[in-house]
């Protein structure tokens, strides 16, 4: 328990920021001005990769949105409404989804044209307030899961102070609003193993990987939801657990790992979603060769993606460049399940120990 980030402290800060936002507009109107805001631009031209922060960040360019502008006033109103909606949610400790936001707007006669418009307003609000939407209780639909010896203490309404061990359920525990907002109490584990696919997550639990490696298992379920990315960040930061990410051996799997490590351009306005020290521990292109894994040909789309990644600033590291080159050379890809060729337990008994040793 080194750097404890207090969940309740953060909640207070979120509410404070939302209040200030309202007060600022209120003040502008009192002075007889059309309310306006200034926020960092999220246009492509203003997104930069920062080697220091090890993630994408927004540049100095700012946009000014004024309710005086006829084209801005509707989205402006929607933004203010979204702030109000988020404030009410956070204050009452209720959660909702992006879909809820879309529908709720209709009750206030500030209806969105479609879901993307509503999502974009929420992203605006994140930028203005400086917190991820999960912090003001707007969650995405996708959920991932966690299993392992970690005791948490709920802060959600009705469960305040109650403790729970995440090994209690053999299917793992969904990383939903309740887990996300929980405080960490204690853990005996030494590391986090994040897995791309549900099948392998279950196999790992069955094969007692958590015991054998003294690890917390996290199911990503494809591209990890932001709540999970933030949760992994907390595991790494607060509990100082090293993080290993296992994905399929193809450009898409690589990128799942990369987004956890260095974040995405879409989230350049947010912090605390990335875990720069996390490791991509397979399946590597070299594994396909070394373990003689059953493999498929790379498709033209896969190859195009590899060339894109090769130029991506996040992939500057030696490992990444080496593996990309290898993929392009062998023109093959393999899924995590490919190890089953050598028996169902081979991956746990043989591959995983070797790999963890290699990465460490």
């Amino acid at each position: 328990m080194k750097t404890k980030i207090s969940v309740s402290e953060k909640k207070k800060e979120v509410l404070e920021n939302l209040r200030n936002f309202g007060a600022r507009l209120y003040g502008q109107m009192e002075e007889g001005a059309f309310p306006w805001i200034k926020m960092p631009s999220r246009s492509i031209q203003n997104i930069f990769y920062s080697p220091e922060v090890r993630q994408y960040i927004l540049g100095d360019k700012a946009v000014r949105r004024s309710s005086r502008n006829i084209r801005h006033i509707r989205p402006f109103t929607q933004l203010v409404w979204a702030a109000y909606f988020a404030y009410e949610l956070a204050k009452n400790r209720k959660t909702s989804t992006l879909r809820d936001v879309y529908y709720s707007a209709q009750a206030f006669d500030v209806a969105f044209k479609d879901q993307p418009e509503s999502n974009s307003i929420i992203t605006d609000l994140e930028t203005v307030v400086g917190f991820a939407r999960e912090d003001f209780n707007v969650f995405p639909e996708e959920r991932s899961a966690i299993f392992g010896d970690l005791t948490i203490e709920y802060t959600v309404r009705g469960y305040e102070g109650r403790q729970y061990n995440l090994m209690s359920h053999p299917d793992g525990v969904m990383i939903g609003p309740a887990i996300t907002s929980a405080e960490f109490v204690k853990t005996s584990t030494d590391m986090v193993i994040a897995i791309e696919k549900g099948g392998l997550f279950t196999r790992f639990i069955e094969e007692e990987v958590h015991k054998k490696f003294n690890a917390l298992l996290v199911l990503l379920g494809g591209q990890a939801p932001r709540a999970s990315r933030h949760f992994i960040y907390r595991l790494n930061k607060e509990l100082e657990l090293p993080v290993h990410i296992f994905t399929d051996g193809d450009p898409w799997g690589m990128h799942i790992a990369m987004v956890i490590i260095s974040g995405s351009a879409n989230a350049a306005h947010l912090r605390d979603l990335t875990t720069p020290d996390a490791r991509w521990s397979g399946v590597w292109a070299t594994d396909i060769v070394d373990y003689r894994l059953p493999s498929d040909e790379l498709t033209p789309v896969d190859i195009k993606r590899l060339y894109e990644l090769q130029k991506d600033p996040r992939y500057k590291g030696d490992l990444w460049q080496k593996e990309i080159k290898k993929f392009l050379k062998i023109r093959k890809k393999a899924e995590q399940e490919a190890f089953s060729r050598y028996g169902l337990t081979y991956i746990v008994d043989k591959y995983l120990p070797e790999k963890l040793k290699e990465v460490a």
Partner: protein
Amino acid sequence: MVTFEEISPADFFYRNRDIAGFTNPVRAIFSALRELVENALDATDLSGVPSEVYIRLSHDNDTELGDDVYRLRIGDNGCGIPARHIPSAFGQVLFGSKYKLKQARGTFGLGGTMAILYGQITTHKPVNIVSSTGTSRIYKYALMIDIQRNRPLILDRTIQINKEQWHGTFIEFSLEGDYSRAMPKILEYLKQTALVTPYANITFVDPKGRLYKFTRVTTKTPPPPKETLPHPYGVDVETMQRLQRITDCQTMPDFMQKHFHRVGETISLSFLDFAGFIRTSDPKNLKGEDISRLVKAIKKNKKKGKNGFSHNLSVKEMQHFIRNTQSGNLVDFMKTHFKGVEKSVILRLLHAAGFIRTKAPRKLRSDEIVKLVRMMKKFDGFLPPDASCLSPLGEDLLKVGILKELKPEYIVVSQRKPSTYSGHPFIVETAIAYGGDIPAKDDILIYRFANRIPLLYDEASDICVKVIRSMNWRRYKVSPSMPIVILVHICSTKVPYKTVGKEFIADRPEVKKEVLNGLREVARQLQHFLTKKEYVARERRRLDVFSKYLPKIAKFSTNLAGKEKEPNIKVLLRSARKFED
């Protein structure tokens, strides 16, 4: 055996009533009403008092004839018809007062009589006519038409004393028809007639006893047209022959000036010279007195100096010129010796001094007549016809008429300058009405008029419609779904109809050009209006947006900030306003 026989004009139209618009009971009742209304309006235009036209259509009481027989009664307060012409005017096809060169609704002397003829052949009943020209007598006639001989048969004639100096005409007769199906067209016709005749009171009582009243909104009438002479460009051989036979002019220049439109001395001489109808003596054959007369004429001429004649020309010098000249006639001689003098000046001088000889017009041979007509078409020195023979409605009256019948939100009217086609003067008037009581249909409504007659049939073939269809209306911000009426009025001494039924206007390039230009003019103005309207609407929408969202921003911010009272946004809303309502 093939037999040959002659038929009278009445017989011809009896056999071919389709071409005059009496195709079927529906069309016939419409055409009959329309022809007589037009005659009534022409008659009132001539009388100079604001028109009163009364129309009554009722079921004929004669039950033997069946339901589809109607009695049509039309009366007017027009100039009336002189008693001696009444029988022929109504009982003889192609007899009329409108074969003159001036604008009138009727032109063929056919319509009114055709209506009566149609009535007669479908019901075999006489027509009753009451008319007075405002003298002390009113004449009443009962007539039938002897179709085979094209002659009126007078069945009865009575004379009444006209105490009140009433003038006008009433006609009543029976005819077969189908009013219920003709009704929409008849009402549309009356409405459009009222639009283009805003100074007329038109009353219509239909067979069901319904009263339709179109009330005048002005007593101003358009200036009556003046009768005009034929323009040289519009003359054909037949016309020329007739003129040549009846003229009392002894010389061709006189003939030209007296019988043709806008032909004066200079033009007549230039033309006749151009056409080769002028003869002058060989200078060498001039006698002494001729030479001194010529010199005198030259001295008297005002055109002196550089581009004229020399100042002090003596008889001796002239004789010297004549001795040495190569020219075989006086015109050439003068041209060569007085360089710089215009030919027309020389011609006038020679004409004034009596040196020009032409044939007497009555003695022209037929080949000469043909040549004369041909040269008239080739000669480019004639002046365009003036428009005094035309009686366009005028922008003000057109506006008033449209306002009265269509009650639009916006009107623009335009009158083009007079123009001509084949020697016939014409004027195009255009108008566009927008919004108000005009319904928005799938397509723009087009009202066509010719000599103040609404044209209701064969729209697709009409030149105006073709021009309208060819225009890119989107350029003028006009879309077909807008509530718009486009109006085109063509008036001319000879409207280029394609049929006797007067339903649509033929494709004449000159007419087409004027119609297009007229339409462009009003379309441009409409565009300005629509642009402005759009701007106002946009501003209103803008203000609506502000009024909708600003209070919400205020409310949400107040909640967020945890304040009690909402900020005052009235000032903001006021400043968003660009204009006052």
